[in-house]
């Protein structure tokens, strides 16, 4: 399971403050904590800063990479900011994200073409939010093909089928996990990745829904998640789900997590 640590996002007040103050220590500690807790990529997001985003995103990448060896997940809706961040990134970054929205697609494809960059492919288009698995597959089809035609390898594509809240439509969870299953069946070697918390928007005890949702998605083949790695219950859930889905030979990860005290006393 690919884990992207989500904590370094400037929409969180403490992070915004640290970024504006150029407080390396704060950022580096959070990066280290996330990696120790199992993050494979550290997400960096400075979207709240608008025009100053490219400058701050560059700073975040450099600061994170001076503390940890793992690559960054460069999280931005602005192709300019992404380009600036990739330029200073050491090793192969993940770009979060590309979609079928014309401006994003047109500006990001040249950046990705022929490189080994990993990319999150979000199932969104200029027509708005897809509601059904069919609508998502239609978008994914065009998006994956657009990427492959620019020599992005399938193994570098992590499709995000778009998580929507079940509070507004009780079928949104089902449409999502069905899409995950169909993605795996349609494209050999492709990956899937998503943030989970949208699923529980508008309902109480969100962590209960988020954790159950990740288990259901893993059962259908989800192989990546953008989470808070410091949330032990979530991480424990993911590890248990992976083992139950047959993706943990000899229950190695499960037992390692147990011995590391991840499952509580």
């Amino acid at each position, binding site marked *: 399971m690919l884990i992207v640590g989500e904590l370094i996002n400037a929409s969180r007040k403490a992070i915004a403050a640290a970024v504006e103050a150029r407080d390396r220590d704060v950022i580096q500690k959070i990066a280290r904590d996330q990696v120790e807790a199992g993050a494979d990529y550290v997400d960096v997001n400075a979207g709240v800063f608008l025009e100053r985003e490219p400058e701050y995103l560059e700073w975040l990448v450099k600061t994170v990479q001076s503390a940890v060896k793992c690559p960054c997940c460069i999280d931005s809706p602005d192709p300019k900011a992404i380009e600036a961040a990739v330029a200073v990134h050491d090793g192969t970054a993940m770009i979060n994200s590309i979609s079928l929205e014309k401006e994003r697609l047109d500006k990001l494809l040249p950046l990705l073409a022929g490189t080994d960059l990993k990319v999150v492919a979000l199932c969104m288009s200029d027509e708005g*939010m897809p509601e059904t698995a069919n609508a998502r597959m239609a978008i994914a089809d065009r998006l994956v093909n657009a990427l492959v035609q620019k020599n992005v390898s399938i193994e570098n594509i992590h499709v995000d089928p778009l998580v929507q809240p079940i509070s507004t439509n009780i079928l949104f969870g089902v449409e999502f996990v069905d899409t995950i299953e169909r993605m795996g069946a349609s494209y050999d070697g492709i990956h899937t990745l998503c943030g989970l918390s949208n699923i529980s928007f508008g309902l109480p005890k969100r962590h209960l829904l988020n954790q159950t949702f990740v288990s259901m998605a893993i059962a259908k083949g989800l192989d990546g998640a953008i989470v808070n790695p410091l949330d032990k219950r979530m991480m424990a859930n993911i590890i248990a789900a992976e083992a139950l889905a047959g993706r943990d030979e000899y229950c190695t990860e499960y037992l390692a997590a147990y011995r590391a005290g991840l499952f509580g006393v």
Partner: protein
Amino acid sequence: MADFTQIIETLIAGDSGALEGLVKKALDDKLAAKEVLNDGLIKGMDIIGEKMQSGDMFIPEVLRSANAMSSALELLRPLLSDEDMSVSGKVVIGTVKGDLHDIGKNLVKMMLETAGFEVIDLGVDVEPKSFVDAVKENKMNVLALSALLTTTMPVMKQTVDAITEAGLRNDVKILVGGAPVTPQYADQIGADGYAADAGSATLLLKKLMG
């Protein structure tokens, strides 16, 4: 005034069938359709809006009640005039240009309609000019703007400015909302108010409209 407690409670419980039954009975008992609407259904949705704001009711329950209200409204519609139907105000709502998110906006629209507002929904990715045109052509008195991306928040300011440039600022109350939006931002851009959810939006607008 007649006692609408049962109608209100049934609306809060979201039981469409039972609610239709109660509304039919009220009409059979010769109660005025307008009274049933204002003192029963709209009053009930106001209470639901408060419960949503205070966290006592959640989105799916509010949706269920709104659906029940819609069915009940169909029974009253033939007996109501246009003014009866939109007592609270006339709202243009939309998600600003560059932003495709619509779940919050749709919830607000639904709550406003059940609270007696007439709502024109321009959808998502809406140009400032489209908002201006809709307000002008339809003589709307409320403009509600939604944005979920921090990158599209500035377009809210552009929209408020466009309304001012078109000489319409004094004719509309402007309300803004969406996850990254704050009351401070609402003040900064010259909006009349900010709401964090559909329940609060409805209550605030009712207050603003007097």
